[in-house]
C-alpha cells in the first residue's frame, strides 16, 4: 500500500470545524472580557493569582488548539515548549537582569524556532505516530534541563528563583493584580491574533491540510511549510505562556514541566472543545480547579475522583465546552422567538 493510499483510508483525526464556529460572538466576548477585567477588584490576592494561572494555561491550551484544531496535528510535547519559554524568561531575568516584559517576546521567538525545527520530523509522521514523537520530547525535556552542561544557567535540579515584578509607574496595585492585568492584555492580544490567523490565508491552509492533506496540496497549499508553521506558531505561543508562568510562580524547576503538564494541556483542549478557541479558558479552568475539587472530595483517591469527573465530562459532552455553548445558544434563540 502506498503512502498516499494510507492517508486516504485513514479516518480523519479531527472533526472538521467550520471557521465561524471557532469564535464567540462579539457581544459574548465583551461580556467575558468585562468579567475578566472587573473580577480581580473584588477578590483576594490568592484568587487573583489563580486567575492569572488560569489565563496562562488558557494561552497554552489555545496554542495546542491552533495546532490540533487548526492544522490537525497532535502534540503531547507542549510541556517541552512551555519549559523552554519558562527557562528563557527566567534565565534572561535572573542572569542578565532583563526586564520581565522584554523576555516574553524573546521566549516566544526562541520557542517558535524550536517548534518550527521540531515540525520537520512531524512532516513524516501523522496521527498517533506524531503524538508519540512529541511525547518523547516531553519526556526528555526535564532530564535535559538537569544536564550538568546547562547547570550553570538552569540551576540544574534546584531550579531558578525568579523575582516578581512590581507594578510600574507607582500604580497603587499589588504585584499579583498588576501581573494579572499584564497577563490579561497579552492573552487578549494573542487571542485576537490567533483568530485573525485562522481566518487568514494561512489559517485556511491549516484547515485545508487538516481536512484533507492531498486535496490541500492539489489546490497548491505548501503542505510542508504550513505544517511546520503551525508547529512553530503553537510552540511560540506556548513559550510566551511558559514565560508568564515562570514570572507568576516565581520559580522554574525541571519537576514543574513533566509529561503530566503536557497531558493536562491536552486534556484542557479536549474539555474546552477541539478547534474552539474560546473553549481554551474553560479547559484551563478544568485542569486547574477540578483536581482541587477532587482532592476536596477524597484525599487518598483524588486521582480516581478526577478520573470519574473527567469520564463524566467526556461521556456527557464529548465535544466539551463548545457543545455546551452551542446548546445554550440554541436555547437562547428559542427564548427570543417566543
Amino acid at each position, binding site marked *: 500500500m502506498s503512502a498516499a493510499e494510507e492517508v486516504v483510508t485513514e479516518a480523519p483525526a479531527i472533526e472538521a470545524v467550520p471557521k465561524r464556529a471557532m469564535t464567540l460572538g462579539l457581544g459574548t466576548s465583551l461580556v467575558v472580557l468585562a468579567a475578566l477585567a472587573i473580577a480581580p477588584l473584588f477578590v*483576594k*490576592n*490568592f*484568587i487573583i*493569582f*489563580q486567575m492569572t*494561572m488560569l489565563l496562562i494555561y488558557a494561552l497554552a491550551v489555545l496554542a495546542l488548539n491552533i495546532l490540533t484544531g487548526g492544522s490537525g496535528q497532535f502534540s503531547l510535547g507542549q510541556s517541552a515548549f512551555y519549559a523552554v519559554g519558562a527557562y528563557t524568561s527566567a534565565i534572561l531575568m535572573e542572569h542578565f537582569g532583563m526586564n520581565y516584559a522584554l523576555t516574553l517576546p524573546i521566549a516566544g521567538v526562541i520557542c517558535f524556532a524550536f517548534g518550527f525545527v521540531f515540525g520537520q520530523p512531524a512532516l513524516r509522521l501523522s496521527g498517533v505516530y506524531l503524538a508519540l514523537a512529541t511525547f518523547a520530547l516531553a519526556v526528555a525535556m526535564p*532530564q535535559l534541563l*538537569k544536564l550538568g552542561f546547562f547547570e550553570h544557567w538552569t540551576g*540544574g*535540579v*534546584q*531550579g531558578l*528563583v525568579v523575582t516578581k515584578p512590581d507594578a510600574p509607574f507607582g500604580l497603587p496595585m499589588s504585584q499579583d493584580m498588576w501581573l494579572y492585568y499584564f497577563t490579561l492584555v497579552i492573552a487578549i492580544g494573542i487571542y485576537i491574533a490567533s483568530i485573525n490567523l485562522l481566518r487568514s490565508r494561512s489559517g485556511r491552509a491549516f484547515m485545508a491540510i487538516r481536512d484533507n492533506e492531498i486535496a490541500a496540496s492539489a489546490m497548491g497549499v505548501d503542505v510542508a511549510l504550513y505544517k511546520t508553521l503551525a508547529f512553530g506558531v503553537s510552540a511560540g505561543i506556548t513559550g510566551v505562556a511558559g514565560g508568564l*508562568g515562570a514570572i507568576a*510562580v*516565581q*520559580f522554574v*524547576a*525541571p*519537576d*514543574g514541566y*513533566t509529561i*503530566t*503538564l503536557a497531558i493536562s494541556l491536552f486534556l484542557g483542549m479536549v474539555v474546552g472543545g477541539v478547534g474552539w478557541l474560546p473553549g481554551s479558558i474553560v479547559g484551563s479552568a478544568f485542569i486547574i480547579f477540578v*483536581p482541587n475539587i477532587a*482532592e476536596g472530595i477524597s*484525599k*487518598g483517591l*483524588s*486521582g480516581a475522583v478526577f478520573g470519574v469527573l473527567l469520564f463524566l465530562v467526556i461521556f456527557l459532552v464529548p465535544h466539551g465546552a463548545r457543545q455546551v455553548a452551542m446548546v445554550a445558544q440554541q436555547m437562547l434563540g428559542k427564548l427570543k422567538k417566543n
Partner: protein
Amino acid sequence: MSTIKKLAVVSTALGLLAATSTGALAQKKYDPGASDTEIKIGNIMPYSGPASAYGVIGKTEEAYFKKVNAEGGINGRKINFISYDDGYSPPKTVEQARKLVESDEALIVFNPLGTPPNTAIQKYLNSKKVPQLFVATGATKWNDPKNFPWTMGWQPNYQSETIIYAKYILQNFPNAKIGVLYQNDDYGKDYLKGFKDGLGAKAASMIVLEESYEVSEPTIDSHIVKLKSTGADVFINITTPKFAAQAIKKNAEIGWKPTHFLNNVSASIGAVMKPAGFEASQGIISSAYLKDTSDPQWKDDAGMKAFDEFLTKYYPEGNRIDGSVMFGYTVAQGLVHVLKACGDDLTRENVMKQAANIKGLELGGLLPGIKVNTSPTDFAPISQVQLQKFKGEAWELFGEILSGDVGG
C-alpha cells in the same frame, strides 16, 4: 544589609512595639490561624504523582494530631491540620502554599515535602513571614537562618551524613579505592558533595569512579558491573530503596565484596535488606537517627511501644515497617513540642523563636542519645547520627553518636 535582614529588623521592631502596647491588656497573642480554641497548621504533600509514596507522612501526621486533639489538644487548643496535594510539582506547591496562607490563613506551613517544592515556596513564605517549619527534605540549604529566618529543616542533612562516612573511611581505610554510585538529582549530588568535602584533598586520589544513574532506569545492574571492574574496595551506595536492593543483590551475584556504605535513605530492613536478601546484606555499614520499626531490638523499648499504641488506636491502616510512618510520627511530635512551648503567645514570630530554642529534646522514635537541638544560628534540628552495621537480620549500632553539622 540585605532586604530580608532589613525586613527582619523591622518586623522585630514592630513586634516589640506590639508587645509593649498590648502587653498590659492581655497575655494571649494570636496571628492569623490561632485562636482560643484552635491552631491551624498548613501542610503540603505529594499525595499523587511520582513521589506519592511519601504521602504516608502527611497521613501519619494527620493521625497523630487526631491523637493530640483527642487527648485535649495543645494548651486547650485543637489542631486543625490542613494538608494539600501538590503532586510534587513546584507550580502547584506555590498555588497550595498561597491557598494555605491567604485563603485558609494557616498559622504556619509545616513539613512540606521535597527539595524542589520547598525551594519554590521559600521566598514567598519568607516575604510573608510565615514559618516554613521542619521541611521534609535532607538538602543542606535549609539551615540558613541569616537569609531565610522563616525556614527550618528537620532531619540530618545529606551532606553531613556522607561527611561522617568520609571521616570513618579516612580513619579505618586510609588506602581505600572508592567507587561511588549516586542518583543523578539534587539528592544524589548533595550526598556526593558532602562525601568529597569530607575526604578533602584526598578525594581525587581515593575515588576511582563516580557513576550516576537516572531514577527512570529500570535496573542499575550495568553500573554495578562497571564499578566492580575498577577494582574498588569501598562502595558508597547513594541510592533510593528500590535501587539499593538491586545493588545489594547484584553485588552478591557477581561476587563483588567491597566495604559497602549505604545511605540512610535506604537503610530500611523491610524495604531494602529483606527484599535484597539478608545473606547478601551482611556487613553493610549505614547510619541512622530513627529507630527501625522492623528491628527486633526495639521490641520492648518504651518509645516503640508508644508508637505501636498510636498506630493501633489512631492509624490502623498505616504500614508499620514503612520508614515514612516513623518519620511523620516523630516530626509531628517535634511540632507539638514547639507549639506547647509557645504557650498563649501563638504568633508566627514566637513559633520561630521557640523552634529555634529547642534544647536536648528526646523523642521516642529517635535512637537513644540522639537529641533535637536548635539555636538562633542553628536551624538544623537533628544533626546527629550513629553508625550501624547489618548483622543477622538487624542493624547493630556501633561507635559514638556522631555529629556532622553543615550550614546551608
